């Protein structure tokens, strides 16, 4: 069944979109990530213009994050004060990101910038995660090996403007969470992603938050940042395609719930290795697009040169 997308102005198979939403939703439920880093490149791949893919991808992440955060709320695994501090940084980052995105679109370099961000962040995160999980898997198979301390004092604890975060059991400066939030907000606007894949490691390793509150808190702030990004893109560039969003969301929320059920049956380290391989796969695919000579060197965009 073909469906015409009113903003993207092209006709796509509705089941293909439901399928993409479903597969990405399944993976996001399985690994506890938003899935934006998969959905946006997949939309590029089926011919959705990058600006529309990024803006609509952000809208889709809102739905999957809400679905996820509701599950976490039940377990009281959301640190609200930390969420609001991250959010304050996130809104600033998102605002700058949307502005930069519009600038780059005008200069014709937005595709490059988005692709470079994907290669850099997905590649970096994927490698770190892979390395770390392989190490963890090896440690767990060797009993008696020393366990790494999760709570270590580093330079982060010397910064001013300290604040108490009770749910996380932390007394730290607000500056690092503000900075992490801003970076994630920026990425959300540029890449159409929630930024969970960078937020979660930053919270664990940089802020020293306990793992049990990390996912809930990161999802909580991602909802607001991606919601803000969606509105900004809708207002500044009219690039949110509601028809596309509805189909992706519909597939996504169902897939996410199924994924969450399967995730209970797999071991955490195995899950992380799978996720890191997936992330690396996407990074390698995008890097190859940049490095290899494209079949068609020319591209056409409607519009007037500035």
């Amino acid at each position, binding site marked *: 069944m073909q*469906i015409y997308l009113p903003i993207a102005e092209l006709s796509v198979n509705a089941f293909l979109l439901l399928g993409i939403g479903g597969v990405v939703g399944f993976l996001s439920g399985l690994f506890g990530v938003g899935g934006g880093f998969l959905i946006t490149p997949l939309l590029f791949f089926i011919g959705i213009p990058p600006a529309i893919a990024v803006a609509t991808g952000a809208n889709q992440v809102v739905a999957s994050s809400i679905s996820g955060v509701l599950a976490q709320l039940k377990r009281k695994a959301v640190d609200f004060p930390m969420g609001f501090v991250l959010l304050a940084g996130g809104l600033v980052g998102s605002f700058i990101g949307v502005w930069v995105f519009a600038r780059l679109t005008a200069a014709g370099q937005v595709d490059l910038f988005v692709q470079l961000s994907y290669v850099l962040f997905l590649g970096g995160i994927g490698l770190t995660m892979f390395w770390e999980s392989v190490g963890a898997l090896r440690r767990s198979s060797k009993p008696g090996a020393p366990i790494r301390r999760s709570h270590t004092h580093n330079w982060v604890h010397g910064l001013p403007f300290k604040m108490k975060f009770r749910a996380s059991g932390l007394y730290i400066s607000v500056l690092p969470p503000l900075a992490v939030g801003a970076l994630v907000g920026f990425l959300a606007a540029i890449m159409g992603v929630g930024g969970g894949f960078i937020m979660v490691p930053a919270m664990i390793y940089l802020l020293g938050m306990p793992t049990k509150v990390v996912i809930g808190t990161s999802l909580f702030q991602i909802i607001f940042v991606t919601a803000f990004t969606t509105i900004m893109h*809708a207002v500044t560039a009219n690039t949110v395609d509601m028809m596309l969003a509805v189909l992706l969301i519909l597939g996504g929320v169902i897939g996410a719930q199924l994924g969450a059920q399967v995730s209970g049956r797999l071991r955490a380290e195995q899950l992380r290795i799978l996720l890191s391989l997936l992330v690396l796969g996407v990074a390698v695919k995008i890097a190859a697009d940049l490095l290899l*000579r494209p079949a068609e060197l020319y*591209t056409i965009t409607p519009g007037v040169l500035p």
Partner: protein
Amino acid sequence: MIRALLFWLTLSCPAFASEAIVAGLSQNRVAITADFNGSEILIYGAVKRDAPAPKGPMHVIITVEGPKIPVIVRKKARRFGIYVNDESVQISSAPSFYAVATTGRLAETLSETENLRHRITLPLVIRPVGISTQAEDAPDFVAATIRIREKEDRYRLEERSVQFTEATLFRADVDLPANLSEGLYQVRVFLTRDGQVVDRFDQQINVRKAGLERFLFNMSREQPLIYGLLSLLIAVVAGWAASAAFRQMKR
């Protein structure tokens, strides 16, 4: 000299021509609805004669042209080991869709001067005003535009796709693709003899988004904030509904 001028007048002005064209379209309105998957337009007509048919091969050329908009054509080049957009050329007006259908091979159907005058073939339709100053190999950019859009099925040349019956009646089916954009589509039907245009007929097709498509598109342009908030509301409700539904199922 005078004879030549008279000859030219007879051929170029339909009022004096011994042959004229009457044509019609199966529809002059196309509605893009949510399940729009392309549309087929039937263009039909007849050649009207006051006198016995003159000598020379007779042909019909039909063009369908979508709304013209400015486009930017960018060329990728290798910089620091990766392919990035480098040179760009502004084409001030390129149709979003262009189809040419003919009764015979275009070269035999139409003379070069008549082509120039009526702007029938693609390189003449795309008006590359002042592009030679924008890039060294500017014509390559125009050629690339045509090549890419031909691949997307937006530009086509369909020789011998117009059928003649009894040397007076003709018909052609033009497929409008699924990736159609809105606007007024110009349909031109040319009657040629010996490569000279004898008569032409002009008509328009109004392509509009309809129903939900129209509503969403208008709202995204006129009320972008409300549109954005509505998109969010859908996301919020869907996210909440899914987790609620699955919680019910677990019980």
